[in-house]
C-alpha cells in the first residue's frame, strides 16, 4: 500500500500531469500526420527532456509512444495511408469499412480496440512486475550480455526477406558505437586522428539523422501531396460495445502484443501479423478479411497498442531496449543516472509503478480526446507533405543543435539523414542500426565483466537463465535456417 501511495505521489504533480497531457495529445496528433510518426517526435524532443526530471521526461515520451498509434489509425482508415508504420494492417479492414460509408464505425472500432489493448497490457504488466522483481536480480553480466545478443539476433531475423540487410545494418550500428575512445583502456578506435571523432558518435545525433532529418529530406525531394478532406459523422462511442462482442479476438491479440512487446527486437509488426492471422483463421467469415472485417481491424489495433507497455519490460527490468523508441528512452535514464535493470525493480519500484499508472492514464486521456476531437484532427491530417518536411527539418535542428551547440553534430546528423533517406527509398530497415548501437555498447561492457569470471566456454552458460537464453538463441537461428531451406525448396518446386 505504501508503494502504491508513493507511486501515485510521484504522478500527482503539475509538471508530470502537464507532460502526460502534452505527450498523449501530442502523440495522437503526431501519429495522425502521415510521414511523421513517434520516432521522429521522440528523437526531436529527446534533448529537451534531458533538462526535466526523469519521471517528467519519461512520462512525456511515454505519452507520445503510447498514443501515436491511436492517431495513426485515422489516416489509415480514412485515406488508406497509415499514420505510423504499425497502422499498416489497419488499412486492410479499416479503410474498406470507411469506404462502405461507415467511417465513424471504423474509427470507433479502432479507438476501442486500441484502448482494450493498451489497458490489457498494463494489467499484465502490473501482475508481471511482481515476478520481474524476483527474476530480474538473477540477471548478471552474462545473462544481460546474452539477452542483448538475443535482441540483436531477433531484430535481424524479424526482418523476413531483409535478413542480410538487417544484419549488415545491425553490425554497422555496433561499429558506430565503437568509434572514439575505448571505455576501459582509453585507446582510440577509428578516429583517423580527428579530435571530433575522439568523443565518439552520439546516439541521439544518429537517431535524429536517421529518423527526423531523413524523413524531412524524403518529404522534400518527393512530390507534394495534399490529402483530400473526409467527413466523419455520428457517434464514436459505439465501438466499445462492438469490441466487447469480439472479446476473444481482442484478448488474444492483446496477449500477442504483450508477448511480442516483451521480446527485444520483435515488436508491433510481428504481434499484428500473428493476431491478424489468428483472427482470420478462427473467424466464421474469413473471406471478409481485407474487405472490411471488424475482427481484422480489432486484431490489428489491439495488438499494436498492447506493445508499448510490454516493451517497457526488458527496458526497465534488464536495461535492454527492444526497439528504437525504447532505445531512445534509455538515454533519458542514463542522462539522469537512473540505471534501468534489476536494481531499479529492487530499489525504485514506486518509479516503475508510476510509469505504469502514467500509461493507464494516457490511454484514458487519448480515448476521450479522440472521441471528442477526431473531426478537428482531420485538418491536421491534410497538411501538405513538403511543408511537413520543412517543419521536421526545422525541428530536427532544435534536437541536434541543442545537445551541445555543435555544428559537427549537425553535419553528422545531416550525413545520417541522407543515409536514412537512401534506406527508406530502398525499403531497408533503420531500426537495426539504432539497436546495434545501443545493444553493442551493452554487449561490450557485459562480455568484458562476464569473461573475468569464466574459465571455460561452458562456464558462460552454467547458470539456468544464461542456459535458457543461450538455448533460445540457438533454437531461433536453427528454426530460421530450417524455414529458409524449406521456403527455398518450395520455390524451386
Amino acid at each position, binding site marked *: 500500500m505504501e508503494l502504491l501511495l508513493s507511486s501515485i505521489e510521484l504522478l500527482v504533480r503539475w509538471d508530470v500531469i502537464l507532460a502526460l497531457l502534452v505527450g498523449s495529445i501530442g502523440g495522437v496528433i503526431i501519429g495522425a500526420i502521415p510521414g511523421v510518426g513517434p520516432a521522429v517526435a521522440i528523437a526531436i524532443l529527446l534533448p529537451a527532456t534531458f533538462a526535466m526530471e526523469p519521471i517528467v521526461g519519461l512520462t512525456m515520451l511515454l505519452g507520445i509512444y503510447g498514443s501515436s498509434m491511436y492517431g495513426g489509425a485515422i489516416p489509415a482508415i480514412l485515406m488508406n495511408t497509415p499514420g505510423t*508504420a504499425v497502422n499498416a*494492417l489497419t488499412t486492410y479492414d479499416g479503410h474498406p469499412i470507411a469506404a462502405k460509408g461507415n467511417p465513424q464505425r471504423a474509427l470507433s472500432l479502432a479507438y476501442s480496440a486500441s484502448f482494450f489493448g493498451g489497458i490489457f497490457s498494463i494489467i499484465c504488466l502490473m501482475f508481471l512486475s511482481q515476478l520481474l522483481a524476483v527474476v530480474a536480480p538473477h540477471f548478471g553480466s552474462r545473462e544481460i550480455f546474452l539477452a542483448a545478443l538475443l535482441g540483436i539476433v531477433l531484430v535481424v531475423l524479424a526482418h523476413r526477406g531483409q535478413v542480410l540487410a538487417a544484419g549488415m545494418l545491425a553490425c554497422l550500428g555496433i*561499429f558506430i558505437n565503437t568509434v572514439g575512445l575505448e571505455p576501459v*583502456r582509453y585507446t582510440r578506435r577509428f578516429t583517423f586522428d580527428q579530435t571530433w571523432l575522439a568523443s565518439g558518435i552520439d546516439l541521439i545525433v544518429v537517431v535524429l539523422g536517421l529518423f527526423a532529418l531523413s524523413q524531412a529530406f524524403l518529404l522534400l525531394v518527393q512530390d507534394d501531396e495534399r490529402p483530400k478532406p473526409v467527413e466523419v459523422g455520428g457517434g464514436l462511442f459505439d465501438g466499445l460495445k462492438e469490441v466487447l462482442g469480439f472479446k476473444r479476438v481482442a484478448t488474444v491479440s492483446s496477449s500477442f502484443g504483450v508477448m511480442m512487446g516483451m521480446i527485444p527486437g520483435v515488436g508491433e509488426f510481428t504481434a*499484428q501479423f500473428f493476431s491478424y492471422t489468428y483472427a482470420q483463421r478462427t473467424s466464421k467469415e474469413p473471406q471478409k478479411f481485407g474487405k472490411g472485417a471488424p475482427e481484422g481491424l480489432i486484431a490489428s489495433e489491439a495488438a499494436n497498442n498492447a506493445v508499448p507497455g510490454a516493451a517497457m519490460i526488458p527496458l526497465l527490468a534488464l536495461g535492454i531496449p527492444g526497439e528504437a523508441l525504447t532505445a531512445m528512452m534509455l538515454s533519458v535514464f542514463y542522462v539522469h543516472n537512473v540505471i534501468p535493470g534489476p536494481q531499479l525493480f529492487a530499489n525504485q519500484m514506486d518509479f516503475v509503478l508510476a510509469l505504469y499508472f502514467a500509461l493507464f492514464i494516457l490511454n484514458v486521456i487519448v480515448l476521450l480526446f479522440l472521441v471528442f476531437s477526431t473531426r478537428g484532427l482531420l485538418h491536421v491530417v491534410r497538411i501538405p507533405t513538403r511543408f511537413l518536411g520543412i517543419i521536421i527539418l*526545422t525541428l530536427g535542428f532544435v534536437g541536434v543543435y541543442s545537445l551541445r551547440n555543435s555544428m559537427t553534430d549537425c553535419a553528422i546528423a545531416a550525413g545520417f539523414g541522407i543515409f536514412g533517406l537512401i534506406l527508406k527509398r530502398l525499403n531497408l530497415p533503420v531500426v537495426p542500426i539504432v539497436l546495434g548501437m545501443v545493444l553493442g555498447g551493452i554487449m561490450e561492457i557485459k562480455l568484458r565483466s562476464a569473461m573475468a569470471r569464466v574459465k571455460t566456454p561452458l562456464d558462460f552458460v552454467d547458470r539456468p537463465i544464461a542456459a535458457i537464453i543461450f538455448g533460445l538463441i540457438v533454437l531461433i537461428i536453427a528454426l530460421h535456417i530450417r524455414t529458409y531451406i524449406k521456403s527455398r525448396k518450395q520455390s524451386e518446386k
Partner: protein
Amino acid sequence: MSESSLKSRPSHHPKRGDIYFAAFFLLASLLLLSQIGTETSWVKGTKFFAQPRFWPAVSLIGMTVFASLYFFRSVLSKRAGNEVKEIVLWLKSLEYTVWFMAYVVIVPILGYLISTLVFVYALSLRTGYRERIILLMSGVSAVAIVVIFKGFLSVKIPGGQLYEIFPSVIRNFMILYL
C-alpha cells in the same frame, strides 16, 4: 519493429538503386576492415575478449560478410530499371542538406527567431508554395517552434550576434527566450 509495411515486405526483389547501395556498403566495409590494424590497438596482457580491437573487428567482419552476401544477391537479382533516376533523387537531398547547414550557420549570427523565420519562409518559397495560407502557416510555425522550444522548454540555443545591437533589457530577453 520494422518500418516497412506488410504489403511491402518481404522484398526479395531489389528496389531501384539497390545494387549501388550494396556495392558502396561492401566497399566501405572492406575499406574500414583494412584499417583495423592502424585504427585500433592490441594491448599486451589483456584478454582476447577485452581487447580494444575485439568489437570493431566483430562488427566490421559482420558488416563485410553480410554486405558481401547482400551484394551478390543484388547482382544475381533482376534489375528494377531506371536506376539513374533513383540516384538523382538521392543526390537531390544534398540540396536540402546545404539548406540545413546554412540554417545551422546563421543561427549564432542572426539569432534563433530571425534565422528560423528566414529559413522556413525561404524553404517554403523554394519548394513552390505561394499560397497565402501556407506562407502564413510558415510564419506561425516558425514563431511557435521558437517560443515552445526556447521560451517554454528552455533548450540550449545561444543568442545571436545580432542581439548585441539591442538595448540591454531587450537583449537579455531575446537571449533567454528567442
